[in-house]
């Protein structure tokens, strides 16, 4: 429901990060987002068919505070020459890594 979704967003430790370069690799995401705190995992968004990176990823932290810090300070900075944008995500569910085909 909408309310569940809102609660999930308010308590989430996961960020959706968009506008990545297709060439950006997982370890670069770790390096950048690791600057805001302990990263639990990074899930790279993949093209549904080609299984290649397609410009977004999820970054999950251990704590909400670290995720907030990343949102405040890393969103709208550059990675691989692209201004990346982060936003709250309700939490990663298997299958969501596949973007538009």
């Amino acid at each position, binding site marked *: 429901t909408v309310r569940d979704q809102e609660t999930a967003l308010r308590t989430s430790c996961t960020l959706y990060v968009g506008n990545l370069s297709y060439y950006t*690799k*997982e*370890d*670069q995401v*770790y*390096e*950048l987002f690791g*600057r*805001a705190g*302990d990263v639990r*995992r*990074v*899930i*790279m968004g993949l093209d549904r068919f080609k299984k290649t990176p397609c410009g977004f990823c999820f970054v999950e932290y251990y704590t909400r505070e670290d995720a907030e*810090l*990343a949102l*405040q*300070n*890393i969103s709208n*900075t*550059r*990675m*691989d*020459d692209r201004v990346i944008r982060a936003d709250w995500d309700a939490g990663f569910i298997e299958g969501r890594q596949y973007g538009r085909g």
Partner: protein
Amino acid sequence: RRRGAPLIEDVEKKLQGVIGKVGENTGSSIECNLDKLTAFLHDDLEKYRASIIDIIAGCAIYLPNRVTVYTTLVGLLNSKNFNFGGDVVEKLISEQQDLLSKQKYQEAQNLAIFLCDLGNSGVLTAQSIGEYLESFIAAAFEENMPQVRNDYYIQTVLRCLPWIGKELTEKAPEQMENIGEAIGKYLELRNKNHVALLQVWREGSTDQKQEDYLESLSAQIEALRNADWVENHIPRHYSGFETTLQDALQHNLPSFQSPEHTSDMIYPYPLVVFRLFQDADCSAFSSKPLPGDSSIDRFLFEGEIAWIIEKNQFNRKACARELLAFAEENPSVPIGFLIFETIFGQMLRLPHAPYPAIFHCSLVLELLKLKPDDYPQILVQTVECIYRRADSMQPVCIDRMVDWFSFHLSNFQYRYTWTDWKDCLNKDAFSGSQIFVREVIEKCRRFGSYEKIIAALPQDFVKIHPCSPEVRYLIDEEDTALVQRAETFTQMFQERQPAEAFLNELKSNDENDELPYNINEFGLFVMVMLKMASKTYSHNFSALFRYQTTLKTVCDASELYQEKLLETLYSCWKTNQQMLMILTDKLLKMQVIDCSAVVGWLFDEKMWQEHDRQWLFEVLNQALEKLTRQINVVEKDIKELTEKTENKIKEEDDEESDIKMDEDETKEEKFKQDLEDLENNKEKLERMVTFQKGLFNDFLIAFIEEIKNAATSNTSEMDGSGDTPGTQTPKFMWLRGRFCHVLLAHAETLLKHSSNIADEVFSEGTDPSIIECFNQFQSLRL
């Protein structure tokens, strides 16, 4: 903030409107706004008294850069309504006590300044303010108190004086005299051991001012006093209302009551002044003179910039905007330089920076974006100042600059005038400047890619190029048996055999073997696994989780396996420090290895060759920090359970206990459970603390041994540089600096049991300068 009657929100808005309009040249002046606001508030003063007082108190605490605006407002309201002024003062005093009991020292200090400034707006008598400040001095002279506590009270008085000094000199000369004398005496008697440890640059190695903050502040106040308190900084809004304010009835400020000191109170660490720029640094860019590095103006500007940052620490864009507005309010001073000086001073503050590093990093980017014509040049100047003094910079400060600058360059395609830094290539591998450049390149590699950073560097930097960060899979091809085993493991991984299958495969066949698993085969198993999972972190993590049972079962059987695991990890990922860090961290979190294995590994003689690298100390500090956090969690649990059970016992004493019902019985059971948990937690805490102490001791002993080795080895044989005593070499200086870094990084833990540590880790052969570092460290919490 309160929400309630609609008017309150209006009042809030009105107040915020005033704040917003301050400093704006367009529209009405601040004086005019204050007039209107006073009239507006006065009409409804009785109706919304409590809320208005709350809001004013909030502004006094959290908007210290607008002190004089609000003291003027209170003055104007007081002149119309005497009781209102008294109520505000009373509220502020009780807020101050409350803040001190919550250990919010900065905020409590803001209130002291505010209260003193009420003496300028006709609310309080100068005489009583003099007495108020004298009571702070008296608190600082109480016997058997920690110096950091006394420092805080003295600092508070000194910080108040720019606002009220003139008034006191004129109207309460006796108190002013006493205060000045007492501060002089206090500073004379004060221990200053800690100063060298908190300096960004090694003592005597630079012309930068980096004296003790309190001493410096006191000297500035003295100079200000000699100049008859004339400064060019504080916007004294009340002077426009002099005729109104001078007729107002004044209140007496009661003396300050210092809250009782208890052993668990933690006061702010002592500070050291940070000055980056001298006039020559900015004269090329700006014709405006920089205020002298020990002038009160420089100090007040720094304070104001720090307030703006504090207020906007969660919003980098607003922070940059407000800083810029502040610069525009002060066109005759090169504020840009002072903004960068203050930001870098905060980034480099020891033992800890006041904000997360990533905030400072993104704030710098915002500033450049807002002022692309001037600020990039100031930043270049900043980086130059830091690079030029890198050889004498403390290692922990170099680390912080590396982290910032690599992030910064990743936003600018790694473009920099790298050739300007060619001189570091010929320096010692342990020299600060070479380490700085080398580590910046390494971290840029992680942000971008190996190819990108190599392409950005000039040719001759090849000497300090990072290695290609690929996995290394070293197997002796001649050893057919080994190759065979490796193939077996590879096949088992491909078949996704369960964790147990590997355990069986690793069991030792040798009956003479005291260990249950074949240790070399275990190493091989780990190597094959790391090789197969080498593609990404996700691959690595899923391999670790899939074979967690294998790894954990083997590693639980003996420390030797943990050592083997870490050694293998190192040999595979030697050239990829990020991988080493992240995988070590994961293994710790999965409890496959423990903290002492990691520390033992990092400080083994075999790893000394890596001690000029940043990653090793990052891994070390992370591992130790993790342990501390676990201990803090248990401590918190104990505190909660103690409170819970104590309350219960109290409740029972209050109740009449002869009637028992079912409900009581379940309660009773719950209580028993809590008591049991409490006991268990206490035991657990004791075990953990003992473990932690042992760990710190072991590792400090190992580190001291290494440093001793560096001090006594003669370099002249190796590099022909002549007879440099070991203790003068860059290597020794660097390692000693790392020793200080580790102490500072874990100050809170180490200071708790530092007296024992000294007895246990120092021996006759310990280098005297290491003991000196330790003594400096201990005086941090005197």
